[in-house]
């Protein structure tokens, strides 16, 4: 028995060394150490040996079991390592193949720009107030200090409707009147809003001019709002929008609904003022018209202009997007060509 044990041990140990893959190893384990393996069988047969041989055989058989088990585990580990190494070697792909395209959606560039305005102005306490597209002449012009035949009406070519005194708003400023009358509680409450919306002007459609465009107007009304606040607020906006070192230039201008009025230029963020095509070599980009709310407009909004004051400003999101992304044709915005939209 002992002899047979030694022989089979040698054979099994030798066979184990030859095994190179998992399936063979499992078979060896079953035939050797498994429940019906030969070693298990021999250990089970110890009882049939003469009593004096039992102890020695048992001891030796157990030693062999330990040795084979260790050899098996070592072999198993080796094979796993080899398998893994082979897998890693053979599993290479062409990583330069394009990824699987996902169907993606996206926001219109005007929406993206509007949201930038909402966020920045929202952080400064300006809330969004929206008003209608089709307006009456009074709210769009007369109440904003632009009486009929005023030269300022030349600044905005108007779409009229067949309904008398009903027009498409030429700017978001009529929203100033509506906001003051709705939120001002008869001129007793301060206001801080931005007024986004679509505006319409009777113009030829060209790469530089459109009949429809967004504006984002701002309005702050209070008992203590001054021109210095307007300058500081716009400068803060410019830093948020264009970076901490954005330089801003304020220059006098004219809008019938503000006085004093000013245009705001920001240093061209493409050439940093050196002059380029986008800033027409001037170094400045005109970004916003603004001013102190005209006393007549305050009065028309229900406020006493000798007690209340305010400022207003207006941006063009499409123009801003054009500057920031180098878009040369404003007609892209409502053309909705996917080849354009998919670039945002």
């Amino acid at each position, binding site marked *: 028995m002992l002899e047979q044990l030694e022989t089979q041990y040698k054979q099994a140990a030798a066979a184990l060394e030859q095994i190179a893959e998992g399936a063979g190893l499992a078979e060896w384990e079953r035939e050797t150490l498994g429940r019906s393996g030969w070693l298990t069988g021999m250990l089970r047969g110890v009882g049939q040996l003469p009593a004096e041989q039992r102890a020695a055989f048992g001891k030796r058989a157990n030693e062999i079991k330990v040795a084979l088990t260790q050899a098996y585990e070592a072999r198993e580990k080796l094979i796993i390592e080899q398998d893994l190494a082979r897998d890693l070697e053979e599993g290479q792909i062409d990583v330069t193949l394009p990824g699987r395209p996902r169907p993606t959606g996206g926001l219109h560039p005007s929406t993206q720009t509007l949201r930038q305005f909402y966020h920045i102005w929202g952080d400064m306490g300006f809330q969004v107030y929206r008003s209608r597209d089709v307006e009456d002449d009074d709210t769009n012009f007369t109440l904003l200090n632009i009486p009929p035949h005023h030269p300022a009406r030349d600044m905005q070519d108007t779409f009229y409707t067949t*309904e008398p005194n009903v027009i498409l708003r030429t700017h978001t400023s009529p929203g100033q009147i509506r906001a003051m009358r709705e939120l001002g509680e008869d001129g007793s409450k301060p206001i801080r809003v931005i007024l986004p919306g679509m505006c319409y002007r009777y113009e030829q459609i060209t790469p530089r001019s459109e009949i429809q465009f967004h504006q984002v107007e701002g309005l702050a009304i209070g008992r203590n709002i001054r021109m210095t606040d307007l300058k500081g607020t716009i400068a803060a906006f410019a830093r948020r929008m264009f970076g901490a070192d954005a330089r801003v230039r304020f220059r006098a201008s004219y809008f019938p609904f503000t006085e004093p009025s000013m245009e705001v230029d920001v240093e061209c963020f493409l050439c940093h003022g050196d002059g380029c095509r986008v800033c027409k070599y001037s170094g400045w980009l005109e970004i916003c018209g603004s001013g102190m709310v005209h006393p007549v407009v305050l009065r028309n909004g229900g406020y006493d202009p000798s007690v209340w004051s305010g400022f207003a400003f207006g941006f063009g999101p499409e123009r801003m997007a054009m500057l920031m992304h180098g878009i040369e044709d404003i007609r892209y915005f409502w053309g909705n060509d996917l080849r354009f939209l998919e670039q945002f």
Partner: protein
Amino acid sequence: MLIPLSWLKDFVDIDIPAELLAEKLTVAGLEVDKIMYIGVPQTQQAHLHATFKQEVRYPKSDHLVWDREKLLWGAIREIKPHPNADRLVLALVDYGGAELEQCVTGAPNLFEFKGQGPLPEPLYTVIALEGAEVWDGHSDEPKRMILKEKPLRGIPNRSMVCSEKELGISDEHEGIMLFHADLGHKPGTPAQAVLGDIVFNIELTPNLARTFSIYGVAREVAALLDKPLHPPSYEVVMDGAPIDGQVFIDIREPELNPRFTLSLLRDITIKPSPDWMQRRLKLVGQRPINNIVDVTNYVTFEIGQPLHAFDYDKLVARAGGKAPTIITRLPEPGETLETLDEVKRSLDSHNILVCDTAGVLSMGGIIGGAETEISDTTTNVLLEAAAWQFINIRKTMSTQKVHTDAAARFSRGVHPSQAILGLKRGIELMRQLSDGKIAKGIIDDYPLPPETVRVALTTHEIDRIMGVRFSAEEAAALLRRGGFEVKVEGETMHVTAPDFRMDISSDPITGQADLIEEIARISGYAAIPNTIIADMMPDQQANPSLEREEQTRDLLVALGLRETISYRMTTPEREVQLVPPGMASSLPQADYVRLANPISAEKTVLRHTLFISLLENARANARYNERQQLFEIGNVYLKNGNAPLPDEPRKLGLLMTGKRGVSGWMHGEEGGEVNFFDLKGVIEGLLDGLHVRQVSYARAEHTSLHPGRSAQLLLDGQAAGVFGELHPLVGLAFGFEDVSVQIAELDLDAILKQADPLHGVEPLPLTPPVYQDIAFIVRETVTAAQAEAVIRKAGGALLKGVRLFDVYTGDPVPAGHKSLAYNLVYQTDERTLTDKEVAAVHAKIVKLCERELEAQLRA
């Protein structure tokens, strides 16, 4: 408006570079759009920075700088014939050198002087010496060249007498520049010093009527630079027989014509105006005509008061040989006038006219009539300078579609006080240039002088609006620079506006704002500090309408759709294409908002539906993209009975067409074409994301949609939009042949009203679920919604989830039937369900389905 610096300097001393002046004007509201250089160099940025401590930005100009050594003021002494060429002459030019320089030239304007020997009076021009850089006069494209010695037909030639084109002044190359006077400079002076100039193009906002002239800009410059102003001369030499009795004025509409002045100049000679005047007129874009007409233009541009010159003798003739009476009035019915632009005009009832007893002479303040204009034979000139109400001028400009330099100024406002100044300036210049005699006296009818504007302003008010604390004297000094009279009384300034400041309001509060702007402008906007708002923050308001709209956009983008924004204008004809021919429209029946002045025949009304926008976008994109998944959020416009303003409901439009997925390099992964259920999946995804409850769907009857594949969205049983497959005939109208298009228009206001941002959350279950599948056969008319309702009713509280996973028709399912298969989930938080409990509920479901749906359980 073009402003030559040389002319501006007549009225104000300018001791800073043009670029810096342009910056100051721009910042003060007179936007210098362009600086044009004539021969002189641009100021170097570095020099500006070093000398004036100012960082001023301006574009680099690529104009020709005239070489101070080689482009010189020259006097042509003689024109000799060219011995070998009829079309060339030899000009002998004194350029300050020891000898005359001989230039070979073909300039046609020298031929009349050929062979006359030394000229009695020399002609002046610019001579380019060898090596000078000039523009190539013969090149169509702008091209520079260096002048080289080159014999012409055997005569040595190394210099050139120059045309305007060669110097970069204009495109004129018909002849060389010729002046009949030395313009105050000796031959040999650098041309830069004689003709070099800088011209600003200034854009004027409507409030800047006062600066619509060279002198008007000079006033601004004087105020900004704090320099004295030198007004033009208004001295008049009147040595002719008196004007009394020679002409009468009858103003019938003083509101429209508050002042009318006349002066008479006799015995004139019509001839070209002198070089200096012609040159200035050309610099401001005017074509010189003759000495009389040129003066009317010159004064218009110089001080901003337009003038009109009549041929006096023609007026006398019309009056039957008697002294004419000038009548300003509104037209009689049917009156017409042929104006100087050769247009015969029928006059509108509001057109203010200048007439005489025989009829209409001119349109007041706008354009003269042809009959009484100045001609080459005019010997006596009646000069008009008047004032007109600007609003009336504007109306006439727009109804008569006429635009002139005079009208441009009157329509912005010219103060009546300017009329007499213009008259004096004009008549004296005419006298000097025409050898005539001015009749003694002026006829001045001034029935309606405007009130002088006086405003009281306190330093407190300046501080309240500007946020800057000036002393009364400081503020007064700033205003005085602009010509205001100011009397300081403690903290109050009593300000009298100069008459040219028609923009200063007499309304106290507006007038104060006008003055504060003036103080801010003259002190400089850059000097005003920046502060943050110290005023109280208004109450913050919730804005769910916007927040949920933006959330809707985000959800739709996450669902893979791309946003469009379209023109809101369309035409009824375009929208009619949304209805199959011969069928009744399901689109809104409200009236359109119609444009009275559409920009094109393609954009006459505001849209009624987003369908038109979506389909036109999809059609335009179809050439490049078969797969399109689009959404748009925007208003439609519906007239509401007699209300003047329309309803503007907010809609959500969806459109899907083409493959479900995006194709890559792996085969067959894009899936099939989208169908009704892809679109419905997007709507469900959106409503889930917004936590809209009480959603149901019903068949839609909408003629733009496929009758069998369209649905209505119901929220709480209320219709909130339609969606489905586009009617094939409508698809065809938009170019989609054999391509299905899924489209939706939903009522966004209704959806967002139902959105529930405070939706609750189910706790995570503590017990394991039990899954069971069930499949049964029902008649095809049984809807999924009915089947699910029955299952849920039978399942009771223990049935937690029902998910349809298969719908099957065909063998072995009998005809007219379908098989529905569901995953069912049983669960309760109270205990782990036993097989027995589940089996009992399951059996109940089977039973109820059999009873209520006549369902047959599948094996």
